[in-house]
């Protein structure tokens, strides 16, 4: 399917060659990666999404700068009793509430409502308001994003590496090795992602992980990373195993074997390059899934542990104050939506660029 101008394109190599030939140009030899880049750079929606994602990442990485130059409020610092100066007047960060007993009956002065968005009126602090403990929402949003993105990307990388290795072993060796690894995939696949994540996250957050020479406390981000990475292994491993089973029968593998190449060499120099585009697309798409899972687990208390922020914990913290302080949950929700949407659109674009006929999806 060829399109013209700046429209989205799914051109195949043959179609692009035909296009160049019809324009009277000499047909240039291009690598599959060059062809993919040519397709991708014409997909402005995908590139725009990539730009948005990079913007989010850069903003989150700049969180310490935001604290030191703008808000001056560390992400976990409780400021319940503080006040800020706005238009020359002191305004409490959290409104004061109290109860007096009059003739045996309590008379309530309601309080506990965090200050709303100041948009610079207080010199940078509380630009988008405060949470229930008087912490700066933007600061926690940036630090929370840093945690959520770090967990998402790292767990996606771990998942991908482990899944690729297992898929290579299962697909290449077949037989008993394939059976054991496939049943392992089936076992994890049998549990809903969130339920398995909650079970593991809750169990590990109580006492941490202290096995195989690894010592992680219950509040360590690596616990969440490990849990998220573990639950997604079959979602990458199974489709790759299928592809490798097919590649295993191809002539170039037989040729490599005939030339005396060992299994490791064949797996990593012959098979792996042939699934690289699929791996890349799956990795991109699984990042979004990992971020969403981390957010879900943190929201349910089985992910990032308080007081460390993450977008999931921020939504959870703000859910009881949606009516009076929607900023606590709202902006974290928006950040998640924008980030995941950007990754997914870019991932789809990447998939279309690398293999227009592929139907790679993360399904769970």
């Amino acid at each position: 399917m060829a399109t013209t101008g700046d429209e989205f394109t799914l051109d195949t190599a043959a179609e692009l060659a035909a296009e160049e030939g019809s324009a009277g140009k000499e047909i240039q030899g291009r690598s599959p990666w060059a062809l993919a880049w040519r397709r991708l750079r014409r997909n402005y929606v995908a590139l725009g999404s990539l730009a948005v994602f990079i913007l989010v990442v850069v903003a989150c990485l700049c969180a310490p700068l935001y604290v030191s130059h703008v808000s001056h409020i560390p992400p976990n610092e409780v400021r319940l009793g503080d006040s800020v100066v706005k238009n020359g007047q002191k305004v409490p960060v959290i409104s004061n509430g109290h109860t007096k007993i009059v003739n045996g009956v309590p008379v309530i002065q309601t309080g506990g409502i965090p200050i709303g968005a100041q948009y610079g009126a207080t010199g940078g602090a509380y630009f988008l308001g405060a949470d229930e403990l008087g912490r700066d929402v933007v600061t926690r949003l940036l630090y929370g994003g840093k945690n959520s993105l770090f967990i998402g990307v790292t767990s996606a990388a771990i998942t991908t590496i482990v899944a690729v290795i297992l898929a290579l072993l299962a697909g290449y060796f077949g037989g008993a090795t394939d059976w054991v690894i496939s049943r392992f995939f089936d076992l994890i696949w049998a549990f809903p992602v969130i339920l398995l994540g909650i079970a593991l996250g809750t169990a590990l957050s109580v006492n941490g992980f202290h096995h195989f020479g690894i010592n992680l406390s219950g509040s360590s981000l690596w616990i969440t990373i490990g849990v998220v990475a573990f639950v997604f292994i079959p979602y990458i491993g199974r489709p790759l195993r299928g592809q490798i089973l097919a590649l295993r029968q191809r002539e170039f593998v037989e040729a490599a074997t005939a030339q005396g190449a060992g299994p490791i060499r064949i797996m990593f120099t012959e098979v792996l390059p042939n699934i690289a585009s699929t791996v890349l697309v799956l990795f991109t798409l699984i990042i979004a899934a990992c971020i969403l899972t981390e957010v879900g687990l943190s929201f349910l208390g089985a992910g990032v542990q308080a007081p460390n922020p993450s977008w999931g914990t921020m939504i959870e913290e703000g859910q009881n104050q949606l009516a009076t302080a929607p900023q606590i949950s709202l902006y974290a929700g928006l950040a998640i939506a924008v980030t995941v949407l950007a990754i997914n659109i870019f991932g789809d674009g990447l998939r279309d660029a690398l293999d227009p006929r592929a139907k790679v999806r993360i399904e769970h």
Partner: protein
Amino acid sequence: MKRVRSVAIATVVAAGLALVVSACGGGSSSGGSSTTSSSSTGTLSTATYPTLNVVWGTTDYMDPGLSYRLESWQLFQDTYLGLVYKAHVSCLTGNCTKIMPGLATTIGTVTNGAKTYKFTLRKGLKYSNGEPIKASDFTHTIIRDFNMQSPGIGFFSNIVGIGACEANPTKCKSISGIVTDDKAGTITINLNTPESDFEYVLSIPFTSVVPGSTPNKDTENPPPAANGPYYIASYNPSKSFVLKRNPNWTKDEIPGIPNGNPDVIHGTMTDDLARAAQLTASGQDEYDEDVLPTDQLPHYKSKYPSQIKFWTNPSTYYFFMNQRLKPFNNLKVRQAVNYAINRQQLVNLRGGLGIQTWNFLPPVYPQYKKITPNPYPYNLTKAKQLIQQSGMAGTAVKVYTIGDVSVDLSTAEYLQGQLNKIGLKATLKPLAGANYFTIMGNQQTKAQIGFTDWFEDFPYPTDWFNTLLNGATIHPVHNNNYGNVSIPAQNKAMAQLAALPPSQALSPSTNAKWAAIDKAMSDDAATVPYLNGILTSFFSTKLDVACDVFDDNQDDIAQFCQK
């Protein structure tokens, strides 16, 4: 021993002034065609109507032998009666902590140096299933509690011959200290030593008498046959319940127990505070048992000012500090933590629903004496100095809390921040609320400091000091004294006061001694008490709020009347 998720409870008031005078008077007026009838304990509204719809917090059990939650106890006050009961009168107009004769004709004849209590059952009483109420049912009730390993069995440890049951609860068959005569309808309870709070113990649901035919296991669908004006016709855990009139209840059968206004009470159960409030605001339900959501409190307070009531309740929220572990085995550190906590800020966290305190005992008790001046005014500088003087600066501390209740988590985050500010190295350890107190009660957890709260079982200080801060009641598991507080002189004083005969339990000198213990605990910085809770009652426009009777612990839904 009753702890409830702090946001899920929504009952209660207690302006328990004293157990000194059985004042009654005043009373609730009911509008429209309702009439009132006087009783010895107050004025009861008597205007019947077909159905009352209520929204309710979820609970643990609906069996009086097992439940330890206010949500159930509030229903039990109109369904399950014991030999005695706490008066169903408003604390604002009467003595709501007064012990009244229930199934028994009197509150007990006390003899043998206050070690023997004798009761005689009223004649002709029947359960909701038609079975007659027998004296031996009381013994069955207590044995059943042991067989089910009820959380209430600790209250019976002073009964003669209870040792075998305590050693092997599931094999408990008889208790020699309880002697009953079905023919004469008498029940005699022998104690090892006098017990100042024993009549209160007999008023809690664990002693509510159930038929001898009730199986010795959790019975919830339906719950055991009732002996009050209502019975629980159905219970769908965490979803709903239905209360109907007890067909075998005779009008004014037990003086002071209301016959009840609604014929049927339908309850919808939820812990979603916003939904519960909305159901009531929309008129779909007529009473919200849950506490109003703090963030929407200003909205509801301004929109429905005449339909919301606020109540003080006998509860204290506090931080425990484990005195067996560093750094809290050091008095200066415990004092520093007390100085580092700004109690007003913790009241703010609860939307203003709380009263600052530095006493351990709540102010609703006659034994309460406010410690003045405030021994620990907020002073971060002083707290830092004390930490430096203690030599414990930089010590690692884990702050335990309930992680799935937002306000409890926020409270602990505040504590963690303050501990870091004064020089300790604090990290947070949130745990699931479902097993938080079990984990805290296990010595192997080695919990250093954490959030906790306490709601009274009965209105006497033994329920506070002897249970929570007495060195003699420290256990390896199921320990309520999380801080392992043990001050020998105070342990001795508590034991002496607990062993007083009931006739001396409320004397001014006894009250003063309890107040002295409260002061001693503060001097020792045994805990960090920071607020007494305030709860809400929210009514729809269909109900006449003036009829509401908030007794020692809860609204009496049987007395709700319509406009």
